[in-house]
């Protein structure tokens, strides 16, 4: 059974196409990842599915209800965790949860029970009476997620929930989401962190410039990259742009990217081209600090498909 189905979902901002005719579905019980760099259209997609903004054309159904025609029914069935920490700083964590619970239509004992439950899930019950403004970034993120869980949603939508979070809190958040999914919760997760999506998601859609450029499970996407390796040369001095042309001319090289003191090459024969690239850099007077050959991953796939990295 599909929890989410989109049909040619499109959003224009004036003449700019933020989301361009995208189609995907999310099966019940899966974690679906939307991966892409900033500006790829992930947040716009999530905003449309959350009924926050209207699509310019196309539609989507969540639990069988149209985001255009039955937005109130859709909202009753989803929990949304926005990118911003959308909480009231001068209210305590518990007061925040009570308020947002009331907005979901929870009152009395039911509300109290649900607030206690989500506080347990995010492991912040012992700090529930502290003001949000006194919380660390990671704790705020956890309460931000807790709000999304208040309504016992059928679908939890998270828009880059780990931005600005320390590594320990990030692991905690990801583990929490895994556990929730193990208990049957369907999750739509957006991120520009490849590792998070690889760790969490059963199905991954890679977005760029408003379009889905690849869609499938992690293994299916890896097959798309084929046997390509990513070689990263780290250098002591800056690399000039004209080196990109020289390296691109090597027969086996697929894509080349330069970031100040780093040269990233996507190639079928990583080890074979190493001497040639080293010579080019040497000729240009560039001193190599280290060389790394990486196995195919989503980052490699993104580079292969767009010529850009997820950091762009």
């Amino acid at each position, binding site marked *: 059974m599909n929890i989410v189905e989109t049909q040619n979902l499109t959003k224009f901002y004036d003449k700019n196409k933020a989301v361009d005719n995208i189609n995907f579905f999310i099966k019940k019980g899966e974690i679906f990842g939307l991966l892409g760099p900033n500006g790829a259209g992930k947040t716009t997609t999530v905003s449309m599915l*959350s*009924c*926050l*903004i*209207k699509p310019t054309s196309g539609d989507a159904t969540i639990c069988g209800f149209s985001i255009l025609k039955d937005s*109130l029914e859709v*909202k*009753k069935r*989803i929990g*949304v965790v*926005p*990118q*911003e*920490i*959308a*909480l*009231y700083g*001068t*209210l305590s964590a518990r*007061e925040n949860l009570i*308020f*947002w619970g*009331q*907005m*979901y*239509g929870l009152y009395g004992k039911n509300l109290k029970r649900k607030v206690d439950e989500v506080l347990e899930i995010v492991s912040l019950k012992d700090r529930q009476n502290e003001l949000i403004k006194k919380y660390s970034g990671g704790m705020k993120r956890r309460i931000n997620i807790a*709000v999304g869980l208040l*309504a016992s949603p059928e679908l939890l939508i998270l828009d880059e929930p780990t931005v600005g979070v320390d590594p320990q809190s990030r692991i905690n958040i990801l583990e929490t989401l895994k556990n929730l999914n193990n208990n049957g919760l369907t999750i739509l997760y957006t991120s520009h962190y490849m590792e998070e999506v690889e760790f969490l998601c059963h199905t991954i859609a890679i977005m760029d410039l408003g379009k889905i450029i690849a869609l499938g499970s992690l293994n299916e996407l890896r097959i798309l990259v084929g046997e390509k390796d990513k070689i990263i040369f780290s250098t002591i001095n800056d690399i000039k742009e004209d080196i990109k042309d020289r390296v691109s001319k090597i027969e086996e090289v697929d894509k080349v990217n330069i970031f100040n003191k780093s040269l990233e090459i996507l190639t079928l024969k990583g080890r074979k081209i190493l001497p040639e690239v080293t010579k080019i850099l040497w000729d240009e007077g560039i001193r190599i600090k280290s060389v790394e050959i990486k196995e195919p991953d989503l980052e490699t796939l993104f580079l292969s498909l767009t010529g850009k990295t997820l950091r762009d």
Partner: protein
Amino acid sequence: MKKIFLIGFKDLKIRSRDFNAFIGILLMPLILIFMLGIVFQPLWTSKPFIVDTAVVDLDNDYISDILIKDVLKSQELSKIVNLVFLNDENELRESISKGKYAAGIIINKDFTKNIISGKDDKIIILADPEQAIKASVIKNIVDTFTLEVLKRSVVIDITAKILLKESLIKKEDINYLTNEWSKEIENLKSKIEIKFLNEKSEESRTIVAMDYYAVGMGVMYLLFAANNGTESIFEEKRKGTYQRLFIMPLKKNYIFLGKIFGVFLLTITQFILIILITKFAYKVNWGNSFYGLVVMVLSSVLCFSGLSIFLASLMKSEGQIASIGPAVSLILGFTGGGMFPVFTFPPWLNTISKFTPNRWAIDGFFKLMFDKGNLIDILPYASILFLMTIIFYLTGLTIFRLKEKRND
């Protein structure tokens, strides 16, 4: 519906924990009321408002006679204008500089003749800078008088010229006729209407500075409080909580109505606290009509909440409200008579002040406080405030809706 109230009460709870808001919308007006009440008490005094005025009448003709005998010494004005006659202009200047008189009037020699014959002339008003408010009363009276004289003399002059030009009258008859017409000026005393707040009825109370500023500042700070509330709309938009509200399963209108209810709650709480604190701590007399006071508070709070929503609809950020809002509050506070009583205003400013909600709110509260007014007496003031409320809300909400449609 319940969610509208929950949003409003949440906003009130948040603002109640904001120390800056507490200082800005509660502590500041209370301090100002206290300071202005203490400092300006001598201007109002517990005695009737008397303006000591000296006159040097070098004209001694009938226009100056009208001004002195029929206007300044009229039954109404003699209650507040204490007139003293001097013979010498220098003596008058010296007395004014010593603060002996609040105002001085010098009517030049041949003033009447000059005006009748169409020549330029003027009445000089001298003011003691330390009694500027009192002197401005005299200036307004004389301004109104001279304006009326001027209007009539211009009409007479033009009419005479037309009659002569068209040969409808002989030249030798014109002097007789203009003299006759000029006597009509005597009737103008009935045209001069100057009302004083403390000349209404036998039962009226004398204005006490603390009472006056409790109303003036209390009303002026209503907009400060309301703006503080509307700032939260932009603050929530910036922090993302407003967008999160839109993701919740509730009608879009409820969110905005909830925010408006929050503004109303904050403003009414602030005003009630000001009334209670000034009543018990400063002994301000808010009148004897409880229902009158309730209606005035409600109509004022609704009106200023509406004005704040209207202002917010024109702005783009909380920063703009924070900078423009106080300026608007101060301008309205001044023009509405919250800083200086409206009877000290020149006629044009008096007319402008009638377009401000402050004026109607202040007049309504004064009716309760100083004229022993009741619910019926304040209904005209409350009605105008309710009318303004409707205009502000309708305009503000329409602009907000248009903006949201554009952003959709």
